[in-house]
């Protein structure tokens, strides 16, 4: 196979890099992982000129090669590994022309690495509006690099950029900056000879970042550490010297090429006028919470229609397969295990898509940065960061993409707290469970004419989940010790009209990530649970079937009723049933019996499986997921010994609280493991959340009993 040229896109955040990536690759994008790190790698094919293809790699935005967050570390890590399969043959440095000096800092660092560069000069129109005139020809000479003016929004200039990509790949650029900077140090030479590097700057970067470089062994790291100590290499002051030195050179180089007649002061720009409203001391919050309300409304109201289609489609497909294939355990595995599991994933897609459409719109427009800005002080009180807002909001749809959204939080402690508490936000898998249980507890009564009592109950559960999340964050803030300083230093980009295409790509990306991350686990667990619920020790299941049949004949049940009864007896006799009985003593204090025990266990695939399990246990038929039937059946359930109603308000409340707090999601645990690279956090999270659920349910049950 011919190796295609690999071209990396690198630039500051908000420089228009992602728009350019979307223009270059269109729908030919895929997301992979960089080895050893959790950050997504976005790649896509781009036809430079028929038939020459290039592989474009979109790297996370960064201000320099001195990374702070998980996202930014990827860039440095990749660029220091010449043998890595993703190592680019050339780099397109995307810069915001309206903020050229600051954007060029990263460029001058990349220039040292002897990878061919192309400078894509974006947002020239905005620069011109601000009174900045750039002489591109002169700039090319000063910076010794091919420069292409582009407009990442409209796509103008991408053809010329593609042509430039074809040409530069063979040329190498000379080192231009390092020698002019006061960066010579003994440690550089030592690292250079040890690792056989022929580049001083690369060696210097090793000296700065060795501790976090993924490709160095522990031995190599300690070796570098010794040299750093031996030679008195002061990483902080060297970095400061480098940054200041580079800015000096940049300013010199831009002196003639750029004429800056800033006609409008920043505070008089249109963006600043919008800021006056959106970050207003009172109006700012009103607007934000109104927006949140609209978003939640949309997520629940709009998504319900496609969710019903998916639900209907899956059960239609199942009954179709059952009708054409002869009954066998394999068919059961396919329909009840695999396809039902798949349905359990697909059902969440509408809500995730709608939520991320909004989040992406807010991010694209520049408003999300303002949300972080106005929420930072509030969030900080709870050990969180302004940037924690996005994961917490996303958690209302699904914790899996929400936890992945914590990567741009620079401070490790704040990031950990955020990903720890995010699963306490009520995700969409809890809604069906809440709907059924609230119906048992609260009458459907209108209050004040417009609100429904059950709706209010659901709202208050969301609020309770949020309180639990920030309360837990506060506790963690006090427990976790961190030497790392927490800071919030963030660019507030100018407002822009969002590009629909970018929003579309983001939705696609998030849905894909969810299906791949959560999907495989949900399917696996569904299959395991199916096995546990279908088979039992020795011939217990067969015996149960016989017993059900005898009982059905003696009580004159029809075929459907008989089958439902058989299913109920089968489940009781299965491993899942045994397990439910096994844990019964431990959940008794919460008011739960073994039947609920089974439902708690099956909820590990996804919480909404609760409904299906309940239908099976009460022999309504698992296909019959009509909530009204289940609610009626649960209401009628009586304790066989005392003949008292099983689902008392106390039990319903206790069960609601349990589902609100308990960690019942394997996908979330798996994602937390992936993001933190250890089992420590998932385990603590599981114990904490389940413990919180247990204690709260216990209190609620015994107070209401």
């Amino acid at each position, binding site marked *: 196979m011919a190796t295609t040229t690999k071209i990396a896109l690198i630039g500051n955040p908000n420089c228009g890099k992602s728009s350019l990536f979307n223009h270059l690759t269109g729908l030919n994008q895929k997301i992979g992982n960089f080895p050893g790190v959790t950050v997504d790698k976005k790649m896509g094919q781009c036809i430079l000129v028929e038939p020459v293809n290039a592989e474009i790699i979109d790297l996370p935005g960064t201000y320099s090669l001195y990374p702070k967050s998980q996202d930014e570390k990827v860039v440095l890590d990749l660029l220091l590994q010449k043998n890595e399969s993703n190592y680019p043959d050339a780099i397109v440095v995307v810069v915001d022309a309206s*903020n050229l000096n600051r954007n060029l800092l990263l460029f001058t660092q990349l220039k040292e690495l002897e990878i061919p560069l192309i400078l894509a000069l974006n947002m020239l129109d905005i620069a011109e509006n601000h009174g900045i005139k750039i002489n591109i020809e002169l700039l090319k000479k000063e910076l010794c690099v091919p420069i292409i003016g582009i407009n990442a929004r409209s796509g103008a200039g991408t053809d010329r950029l593609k042509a430039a990509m074809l040409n530069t790949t063979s040329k190498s650029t000379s080192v231009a900056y390092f020698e002019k900077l006061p960066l010579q140090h003994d440690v550089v030479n030592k690292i250079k000879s040890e690792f056989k590097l022929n580049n001083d700057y690369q060696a210097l970067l090793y000296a700065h970042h060795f501790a976090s470089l993924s490709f160095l062994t522990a031995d190599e790291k300690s070796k570098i550490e010794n040299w750093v100590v031996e030679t008195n290499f002061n990483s902080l002051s060297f970095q400061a010297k480098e940054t200041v030195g580079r800015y000096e050179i940049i300013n010199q180089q831009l002196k003639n090429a750029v004429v800056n007649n800033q006609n409008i002061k920043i505070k008089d720009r249109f963006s600043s006028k919008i800021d006056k409203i959106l970050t207003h001391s009172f109006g700012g919050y009103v607007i934000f919470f109104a927006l949140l309300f609209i978003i939640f409304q949309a997520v629940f109201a709009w998504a319900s229609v496609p969710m019903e289609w998916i639900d209907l489609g899956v059960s239609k497909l199942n009954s179709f397969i059952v009708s054409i294939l002869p009954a066998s355990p394999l068919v059961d595995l396919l329909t009840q295990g695999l396809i039902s599991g798949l349905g359990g994933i697909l059902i969440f897609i509408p809500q995730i898509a709608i939520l991320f459409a909004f989040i992406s719109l807010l991010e694209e427009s520049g408003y999300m940065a303002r949300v972080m800005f106005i929420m930072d002080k509030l969030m900080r009180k709870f050990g969180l960061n302004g940037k924690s807002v996005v994961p917490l909001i996303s958690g209302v749809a699904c914790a899996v993409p929400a936890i992945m959204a914590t990567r741009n939080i620079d401070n490790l402690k704040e990031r950990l707290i955020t990903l720890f508490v995010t699963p306490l936000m009520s995700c969409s898998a809890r809604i069906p469970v809440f709907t059924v249980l609230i119906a048992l507890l609260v009458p459907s009564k209108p209050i004040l004419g417009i609100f429904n009592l059950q709706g209010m109950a659901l709202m208050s559960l969301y609020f309770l989940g949020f309180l639990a999340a920030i309360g837990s964050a506060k506790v963690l803030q006090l427990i976790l010790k961190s030497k790392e300083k927490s800071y919030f230093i963030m660019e507030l980009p100018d407002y822009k009209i969002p590009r629909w295409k970018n929003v579309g790509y983001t939705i696609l990306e998030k849905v894909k990530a969810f299906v791949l991350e959560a999907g495989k686990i949900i399917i696996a667990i569904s299959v395991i649970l199916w096995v546990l619920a279908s088979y039992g020790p020795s011939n217990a299941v067969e015996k149960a079937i016989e017993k059900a049949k005898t009982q059905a004949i003696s009580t004159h049940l029809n075929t459907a009723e008989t089958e439902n009864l058989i299913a109920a007896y089968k489940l009781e006799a299965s491993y899942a049933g045994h397990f439910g009985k096994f844990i019964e003593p431990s959940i008794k204090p919460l008011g739960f019996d073994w039947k609920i025990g089974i439902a708690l266990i099956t909820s590990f695939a996804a919480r909404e499986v609760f409904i299906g399990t309940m239908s099976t246990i009460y022999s309504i038929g698992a296909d019959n997921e009509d909530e009204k039937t289940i609610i009626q059946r649960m209401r009628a359930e009586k304790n066989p010994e005392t003949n008292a109603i099983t689902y008392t308000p106390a039990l319903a409340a206790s069960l609601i609280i349990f589902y609100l707090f308990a960690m019942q999601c394997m996908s979330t645990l798996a994602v937390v493991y992936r993001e933190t690279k250890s089992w420590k956090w998932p385990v603590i999270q599981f114990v904490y959340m389940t413990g919180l659920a247990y204690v709260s349910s216990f209190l609620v049950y015994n107070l209401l009993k």
Partner: protein
Amino acid sequence: MGEKGIVKRFDDEELSLKLLEMGCLPGYEIELIGTAPLGDPICVSVYGYKLAIRLKEANTVWVV
């Protein structure tokens, strides 16, 4: 609001690296152009763009 000054020096070396990188350089003008609703963080203009920064961090920057 509207207060401005020239960046002189930094108290916190670690933090200063992030600020330098963001273009908050000694000898350059910095101007307060807004505050978040609760008075913190604040928004300043440096190097031709807007930067949001917590008061605590802003306090490590000496301005004349």
